[in-house]
């Protein structure tokens, strides 16, 4: 079966060791993660993992079933790129001299809609948020001017469809109060 890019979203408790537990599910099946990002979600104390993998649809379904089975996981979903809105952020550190010596670099920054985060006598830092192709293009464009450092975040993503995590948590609360 054909590989496809899937974004897995995991809503969970914020417990030590859960990251290990989730990554072990991929390890056991010999799946490489393309990216992994975690942060607090729209609900306080509920965390959200965003994991990107490239696997057949059968496999992503089974993996998500296994993730959701974990005690501290509230709910797990998987989506195709078309079903999500996603971005990555990249930081580019360039020598400050390049900014003044090479006029072209100013055009690159302007056209890429990147932001200058900081400027010092030695270096300046550009930030660009967008799709992979966009951050990658800026990287290629800046490369001739000497990229001192480059780093790109994992994918962050929200889904077009509703997640309904609050409803799940409320059902639990109501059942408990009964």
């Amino acid at each position, binding site marked *: 079966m054909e590989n496809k890019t899937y974004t897995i979203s995991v809503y969970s408790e914020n417990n*030590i*060791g859960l990251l290990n537990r989730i990554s072990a599910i991929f390890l056991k099946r010999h799946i490489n993660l393309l990216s992994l990002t975690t942060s607090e979600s729209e609900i306080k104390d509920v965390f959200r993992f965003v994991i990107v993998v490239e696997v057949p649809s059968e496999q992503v379904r089974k993996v998500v*079933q296994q993730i*959701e*089975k974990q*005690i*501290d996981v509230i709910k797990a979903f998987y989506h195709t790129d078309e079903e999500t809105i996603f971005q990555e952020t990249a930081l580019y550190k360039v020598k400050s001299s390049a900014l003044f010596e090479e006029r072209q670099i100013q055009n690159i920054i302007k056209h890429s809609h990147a932001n200058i985060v900081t400027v010092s006598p030695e270096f300046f830092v550009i930030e660009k948020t967008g799709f992979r192709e966009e951050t990658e293009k800026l990287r290629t464009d800046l490369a001739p001017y000497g990229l001192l450092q480059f780093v790109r975040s994992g994918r962050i993503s929200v889904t077009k469809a509703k997640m309904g995590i609050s409803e799940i*948590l409320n059902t*639990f609360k109501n059942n408990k109060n009964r």
Partner: protein
Amino acid sequence: MDAKTKEQQQTQSQDSLHISGAEAVIRCLLAEGANLVYGYPGGAIMPIYDELYKFQDQLHHVLTRHEQGATHAAQGYARTSGKVGVALATSGPGATNLVTGIADAQIDSTPMVCITGQVASHLLGSDAFQETDIIGISTPVTKWNYQITKASEIPEILAKAFYIARSGRPGPVLIDITKDAQFESFDFQYEKCTGIRSYKPVPTLEQTSIDEAAALINSAKKPFIVWGQGVILGNAEDAFKAFIEKSGIPAAWTILGLSALPTSHPLNMGMVGMHGNYAPNLLTNQCDVLIAIGMRFDDRVTGDLKTYAKQAKIIHLELDPAEINKNVYADVAVLADCRESLAALTQKIEPKTHTDWIQKFKALDAIEQEKVIQKDLHPTKAGLTMGEAVEMINKHSKGDAIIVTDVGQHQMVACRYAKFNQSKSNVTSGGLGTMGFALPAAIGAKMGAPDREVVAIIGDGGYQMTIQELGTIFQQDVAVKIVVLNNDFLGMVRQWQQLFFDRRYASTEMVNPDFVTIAKGYHIEGTSVKDRPSLDKAVATMMASKKPYFLEICVEKEDNVFPMIPTGASVSDIRLE
């Protein structure tokens, strides 16, 4: 006084307790009804052992001879009592020695709580003496695990541990407690865990799935049931029996489902899978509706998935959503506790008798009887067979014994031929295939069901993997009957070498010690049988003994277990010889 007031009073009486974390652990165990634990002491768990000493009247600790033995004993206990087994170990090697038993409990869904000591929290990560990352190590093989670094966490976390271990699909939980948390004093209060917001142990039964399943069953001409341990774990034996009797559907078991239905039941068609019975394996690929109940389509059951029951509609009654469509696609998935779903389904189905279809099972069974079973149980050759040894145990147990098996040829033979009258009587390592499981598991099995006869049937290989537990049997005076079927070979591996590796017997022949002398060294009475005429009396003597007893039965060295579905072959390609 009703139970509730009593419980309230108990809680109130604990309100003012200012105690150490170690004592809290003991009180939590008692509050969870655990009055029997298996374990092995060591530096990082000494505060808890000190409390065990103080509480020895209420909480019986069984000192095994190795931590692995503690886990298997806890498993055996859980499997026959239906309660949560508890194992204790110290940090480092104590904790790592638990891993095999934990992995075994995970894959066979056995409720178990393991408590490990850990170095003091200020030493975590410093590579301290006997420090190991047991949370990291045990993560992939536990249902849940947690490291406690403060005494105040103990009541809530242990309550959660027991709740998680026993609820839903049961499994092992490991709680690692730093030594300083064991020493620390705090105000103890215990409240049982009744729910966790991120965890739904039992899915809500959807009536539509019952309706769809019932419709399929009612229109089926050749329906077939395969049941697994879910029937036992769900205490659904009666509901299951009612279901098959009303539907008249022939049923076969996976190795862990064994004993949920008496062997003698007319609809019990035997075992499916690699060394299962001829009829149920072959007819898997002829049935029109396959009803899988509390089983997970293990590869040893299905053989080649591409040719597994492709002609049939599949109904899967299952508790764990992750098992649905994992290996075999379910046309109808009934997600629920099977006790509930079976009862609902029984109401909706029409009473039937599938006489012609059952006749097919009987015809194929006659072939297996002639080609395999007769030769196994009533051999005419000189050497003893494993089959006749098991049959002799049947004769004397009358099917009332708990049979504990290890892994290998003896296990397959015992599960094929042992007779069972009641549930929770088959204790074996199924999914993980852990050699060395049986001897310690038999200790727990007996302690979990002290009024029942427990016979451990073990191969000479697996026996020597945990043979030191004879010491536990002697010290605790656990009246288990130990039968070693000795062929001086790692028989199953040898069988594969014979069939698939051109008889290159690489490291499978064993030069064995005098097992009777070893048993006697542990003050366990025993004898050895080498010929047919002595077998009956030897087994009779063993079964009549009120004490632990050891019986070595020397069997044919190079017998094979048949039928057999070679790895990766279709269930239709089952071989009789």
